[in-house]
């Protein structure tokens, strides 16, 4: 510990116990939103207060932490959370997906497949998938309890009626373990299939809404759809401009004011590993020119 002023991983032990109990319950009932007494964190709501609390509760001294924001290791949010835990818990941090034991994420699931023993912690803004159709919390809880999920299909129906296809591209509702309908946080629906039967434990923390939910390892996660409009992944139809990856989720980057753009992997670690292994895209003149630094 290099920060004696704080308890290990910032939160006090009682709070961590409370959060761990919520996590255990969430794991026992896959997809169910467990209420917990969310604490104020030294960061604003919407910056990952839920994810940070979950991470603080599960972190041990021997853990290796990776934090990503929109797939990237080197954005403000990712760097500051990584530094936060480096300072308050003194744990080792990494940008490598394979080396990490705990990965806190906002809006993405890493491209490299996760391993048994790894924990993926999601930051969740609005945990309730039914919220925009049913504003009453009492009613949505009842609907979850009774498994009344017709309303979720109403949303998908509206998409098809309006756009001709299911236009929901992120926060795409899933059914966990054939029971609870769950909002996978605003990850792109491209990542939905990665949640199914994943060997890693997936934890979701919503700080403002005070909910924790989980997908235990090797749990069935099915994206909702219609028989005649099946679920499809979505990605830009281009290879990554830096590493040439055909299978990764891409960010669209505007490069000038003349309408030029390039598509690059949103997962920086994946992209860098591919470039290091010799893969090249159309614009990768100088591979490895940048790495995330702590």
């Amino acid at each position: 510990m290099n920060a004696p002023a704080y308890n290990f991983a910032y939160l006090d032990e009682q709070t961590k116990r409370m959060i761990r109990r919520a996590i255990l319950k969430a794991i026992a009932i896959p997809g169910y939103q467990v209420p917990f007494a969310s604490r104020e964190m030294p960061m604003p709501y919407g910056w990952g207060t839920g994810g940070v609390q979950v991470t603080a509760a599960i972190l041990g001294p021997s853990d290796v932490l990776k934090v990503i924001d929109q797939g990237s290791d080197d954005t403000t949010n990712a760097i500051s959370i990584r530094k936060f835990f480096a300072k308050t818990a003194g744990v080792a941090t990494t940008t490598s997906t394979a080396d990490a034991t705990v990965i806190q994420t906002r809006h993405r699931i890493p491209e490299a497949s996760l391993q048994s023993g790894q924990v993926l912690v999601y930051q969740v803004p609005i945990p309730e998938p039914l919220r925009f159709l049913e504003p009453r919390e009492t009613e949505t809880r009842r609907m979850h309890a009774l498994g009344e999920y017709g309303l979720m299909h109403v949303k998908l129906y509206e998409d098809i009626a309006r756009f001709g296809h299911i236009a929901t591209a992120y926060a795409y509702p899933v059914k966990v373990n054939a029971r609870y309908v769950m909002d996978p946080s605003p990850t792109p629906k491209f990542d939905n299939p990665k949640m199914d039967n994943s060997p890693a434990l997936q934890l979701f923390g919503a700080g403002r809404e005070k909910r924790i939910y989980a997908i235990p390892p090797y749990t069935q996660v099915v994206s909702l759809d219609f028989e005649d409009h099946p679920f499809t992944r979505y990605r830009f139809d281009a290879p990554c401009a830096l590493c040439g990856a055909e299978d990764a989720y891409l960010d669209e980057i505007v490069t000038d004011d003349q309408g030029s753009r390039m598509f690059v992997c949103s997962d920086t670690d994946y992209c860098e590993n591919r470039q290091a292994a010799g893969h090249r895209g159309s614009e990768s003149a100088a591979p490895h020119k940048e790495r995330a630094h702590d």
Partner: protein
Amino acid sequence: MTDAHGTDEALLVAEGLGKSYGRLTACQDISFSLYPGEVLAIVGESGSGKTTLLQLLSAQLAPTSGRVSYRMRDGVLRDLASLGEAERRFLFRTDWGYVHQDPAQGLRMAVSAGANVGERLMAVGWKHYGRIRQTASSWLERVEIDTARIDDAPRTYSGGMRQRLQIARNLVTEPRLVFMDEPTGGLDVSVQARLLDLMRNLVSELGLAAIVVTHDLAVARLLSHRVMVMKGGRVIETGLTDQVLDDPHEPYTQLLVSSILPP
């Protein structure tokens, strides 16, 4: 009515039904049976307990005394109070319909008409977009809504269209019993006439049983086979519609009937 419809097994039975809020009694001691295919009108002035009664019958309110039993699709008569919440809600969205006076209460105003009609189908597990849409559009046709407006939200509809959409939304799962709370309230006369005509056709076509709460005796006369007159939370007169309206016995019913302006 029982003979005309060839069954003597009641669909819904109310026994000694009462609801009070402290010293205030909303309705008391109400007993009747409703048979399949029968339309019962509950008439009375406002504040006479009509809507409370409707809510008691549809298990939205728990009665203070008495009970309501309903014959489930398997033929067993069951006390509604003994049903679990899940069963009750399932009943409500499959075997029953509830038409609100204000369509905004019974519809999702922000989603399209097609989704409004399809919601019940999706709730019972329909997962085929094409079939849901086809069923929704055939129901819109039946309630005389232009199918070109299937993707419009009901908030763009007129009052009469909203009410017809609400009826379509309720009937899509082919319920056996429909509760209607002042279904023609707030509509202008010509729209009322069309709606009544439509409801009468649907009821006879589908063999629906219906309980219609109304203060409009014309609605009762057009739609119902039987009438219950309520005053001060009690049923004061009941009988066949023509009988009650043409030859009222109770002074209050006489007053009610005579207060209709002659055409």
